[in-house]
């Protein structure tokens, strides 16, 4: 019962905040709305027996990415925007139609797959101790060791790339 109530509350919060994010005039508010959505998603993770993912999610997104966004928004000094949506009405309508059709199809796919029982997914082996830190760590350092290491290289490359791109005195004309 509690779970159901929590779920619907979180879902409502996430969707509302997401809508708020894309319609709000001020970029700073949009970023803050995203934080709310991300918090709700962390709540979902907890509900789904993935506390470790939830914790990492909060650290990475709220702690790092969103802060980075806020920095940039403030750095560029972006205030309230007058024309925040695409300028032609045609493209807006087209985008909205695409949105509706896409969402409808996605939900329909879920219905066909699960409610009509069209999708048959066998259950995996591990049943207990889902999502705790040791078991995920074990998996990361055994089966996924190589991708894990490569990911660290990717991050290094991203750091260097970001530094080079953002460095002011590297314009080609100079």
């Amino acid at each position, binding site marked *: 019962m509690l779970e159901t109530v929590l779920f619907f509350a979180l879902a409502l919060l996430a969707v509302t905040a997401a809508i708020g994010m894309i319609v709000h005039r001020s970029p700073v508010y949009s970023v803050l709305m995203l934080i709310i959505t991300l918090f709700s998603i962390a709540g979902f993770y907890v509900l789904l027996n993935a506390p470790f993912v939830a914790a990492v999610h909060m650290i990475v997104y709220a702690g790092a990415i969103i802060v980075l966004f806020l920095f940039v928004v403030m750095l560029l000094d972006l205030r309230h925007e007058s024309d925040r949506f695409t300028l032609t009405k045609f493209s807006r309508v*087209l985008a909205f139609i695409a949105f509706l059709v896409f969402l409808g199809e996605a939900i329909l*796919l879920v219905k066909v797959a699960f409610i009509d029982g069209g999708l048959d997914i066998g259950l995996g082996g591990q049943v207990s101790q889902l999502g705790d830190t040791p078991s995920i760590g074990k998996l990361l350092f055994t089966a996924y060791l190589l991708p894990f290491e490569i990911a660290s290289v990717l991050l290094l490359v991203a750091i260097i790339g970001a530094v080079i791109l953002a460095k002011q005195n590297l314009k080609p004309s100079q």
Partner: protein
Amino acid sequence: MQDYIWLIPFFPLLGFLINGLLGKYLSEKVIGILGSAMVFLSFSTAVVLFFQLTQLDPENRLFINTLYTWMATGSFSADVAFRFDALSAVMVLVVTGVGFLIHVYSIGYMHGDRGFARFFSFLNLFTFAMLLLVLGNNFLIMFLGWEGVGLCSYLLIGFWYENPEYAYAGNKAFIVNRIGDFGFLIGIFMIFGYFGSLNFDTVLSAAGMQPEWVITTICLLLFVGATGKSAQIPLYVWLPDAMAGPTPVSALIHAATMVTAGVYMICRTSAMYVLSEVALSVVAIIGLLTALMAATIAITSKDIKKVLAYSTVSQLGYMFLAAGVGAFATAIFHLMTHAFFKALMFLAAGSVMHALSNETNIDKMGGLKNKIGTTYRTFWVGGLAISGILPFAGFFSKDEILWKAFSSPFGSTVFWAVGTLIAGLTAFYMWRMIYTVFYGESRVDKEVALHIHESPKVMTVPLIVLAALSTVGGLVNIPHYFPMFEHFLDPVFMKYINPAAFEASHGSFGLELTFAAISLVVAFTGIWLAKVMYVQRRELPDKIASSVKGLYTLLFNKYYVDELYDKIIVKPFVKVSDAFFYAFFDVKIIDGIVNGSAKIMDSIAGVLRRSHSGVVQFYALSLVVGAIALFGYLIFG
């Protein structure tokens, strides 16, 4: 060993590839030896196979080597398969044997030519195609080789393509051959339509079950192909012009091998021809008429190679006459001996031209007898052989043809009489040329006369070998006493036919001997006449020519056939092409379609170009539409 039949055509193909691709990095010596060696390897393989073949019972003498299935669609399937039976064996041995000698000769003849490597690669390619033709186990492979030799003929006639006349001769040969090939192809289509297969064994064994008109039509269509390739009326006009090519080409392609492909094809399909008396008669009559016509033209020709070319046409006519009276083994026999002595004469003529800085007009020769002795002696042997003098090769084969033309159930006295007349004409025009070229006073240009020299060894040795073959080649088939050749070949022809139908219907041994004596007398008369007119009383020819001026002009202008074709076929065709096919069809319709489609593309692109607006969100929208389509496929698909 029968699994190695493919090696026979493979070697020349290899030679073609090496000489064709790497030729410009190799020296003349390497190219020449390589090209000749490849043909010699084929020849050796063929000899080994030949002896293995003779080990078998006469009825079972057949090797088949299936490499792979070329195509299989529905009920139709064609294998790449080679067939080595007595007929193929003879053809392969002639092609590779004579071909090898001509390759060796070419090393000397083509020495210093800019296109030396090209020449040898084409020559090897030709050998490859010709071997496909004679080894193929179905009509498709045969047709492949048939087209291949046509291509090589075109390439080699126009070998010195800088000369527009030579290039034109190449085009002429190719186009005239296309007309014949068209008939051949339709014939093959009909065979497939009625027999459902293109395999020789399947088709020939089932030939008796088809209605006669079908067989007749197929045979006549195939014969159209043969008239093109083997230069018979009405498609013979290309062969004299084909002499534009280098002389070894004339010897190999336009005398010894390719032009006999038609004879081979008729012999290969003999089981069908014997079912249709109409087709056989057409073959015999066309052959006889061609032989007569070409022989008369040869009398007046002044060009050493043209005389030989018309002589080739004439001898091919003999072969068709033999095939047309059902004497297939005899046709192949004459094919073989003709390959020997005609290759010999062409090569000797080439040697004469070599000595005289490529002079071909016999009026500018004369008195060469002592200056180029080897060439003269071999030419002399060739002359005796083609005239049918005992015991040279031509005597046995030609006499056999004349006898069969009389005695066969399909033969008649007229065939024999005209055939004997042609034999006399042959002896006359051939010795007219020999006497003009080698005897009498020298009429050679002074400048050229200084350089007269005998050809190098590499050219004279093949001449001597061919002369030896022309001398003894006929001995493999002496009727009644030693008919080895016929006994070897007959099982191939009699496999699907009742042999009883081919017993001589009339005539006796005594009559045969009489006929042989008559043809000998006729031949000697021809030679004697030539000697009188061109050695002893040199004013006679001109006198005779002016006394029958009309006839002489007619013959000298080759019956005006070229002019006739030009007027009734080429000119109207060109006119229609200019007025309709070019001005309307090509410009308006073809160009219209091409330019139109380009314009349509341009306008479509002009619209689509707008989509590349640089607006990222439009690209993203396209991506979403794609995702929507994928989802739709997942759900509804």
